[in-house]
């Protein structure tokens, strides 16, 4: 007679999923480059230049950092970090993001992903 253990399997899956979710961490910050710029509203749009530079005149206002660590061999991508990058850009008063640098490394089962970018403010937007 075959013994079925659906509850055990489901429980194990839920437990694993719980660990994976609980083991994901995100840290973010911005540091002003020079003077303090007032933050922008949470609904304002932030342009992202993953490559290249904007054509409008701009000034660099902040360094932006987003750090993601996930265990269980789960990796992170730029799209995982983008919402937080945009949030930090708004907080630093930036209109756009450029100079995006991604760093990946690993430690045992932990996958580490870090993005550094520069927040810029258009000179003609004041």
């Amino acid at each position, binding site marked *: 007679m075959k013994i079925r253990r659906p509850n055990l399997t489901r429980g194990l899956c839920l437990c694993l999923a719980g660990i994976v979710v*609980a*083991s994901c961490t995100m840290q973010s*910050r911005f*540091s002003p480059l020079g003077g303090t710029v007032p933050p922008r509203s949470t609904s304002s749009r932030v342009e992202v230049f993953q490559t290249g530079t904007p054509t409008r005149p701009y000034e660099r206002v902040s360094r932006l950092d987003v750090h993601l660590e996930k265990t*269980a061999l789960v990796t992170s991508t730029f799209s995982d970090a983008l919402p937080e990058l945009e949030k930090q850009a708004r907080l630093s008063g930036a209109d756009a993001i450029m100079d995006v640098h991604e760093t990946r490394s690993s430690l*045992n089962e932990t996958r580490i992903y870090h993005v550094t970018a520069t927040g810029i403010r258009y000179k003609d937007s004041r």
Partner: protein
Amino acid sequence: MTNKSMLKSALALATLIGLSACGSSSSPTASGGPGTVFNQPIAKTQRAAVNALVVIGCDIKKQEPTYVEGHRPLKMGLIVGSGNETVKVSLATVSPQKTSVNVKTEKSFVGGAGQKDWSKQILDEMTKALGR
């Protein structure tokens, strides 16, 4: 060997293992040495140290002109998590345009298996930002 002496030996061994597992360990190369010299003023080098700590996932706990300290939060894993290290960066002026840097990683007992010495990464990151 009697049961009593075997028990005594086992207790002594367990105590020894327990003692050796406690406490924190630190990088032997990072502490007390002459340090890595950067051809930059101390203020600029300190900013680079803060940025390097952030890049490796540290929360900045102390930020002084000659000292920066960060802590990597502990992460739970399926088998081995990571984090719970404290990284300390000491800075000293060699000349107005030269700064000596010492990096020390302190590992803690909790999560020890998933910890590493971050000194090299910190110095590499600072070198990228400052040059040498």
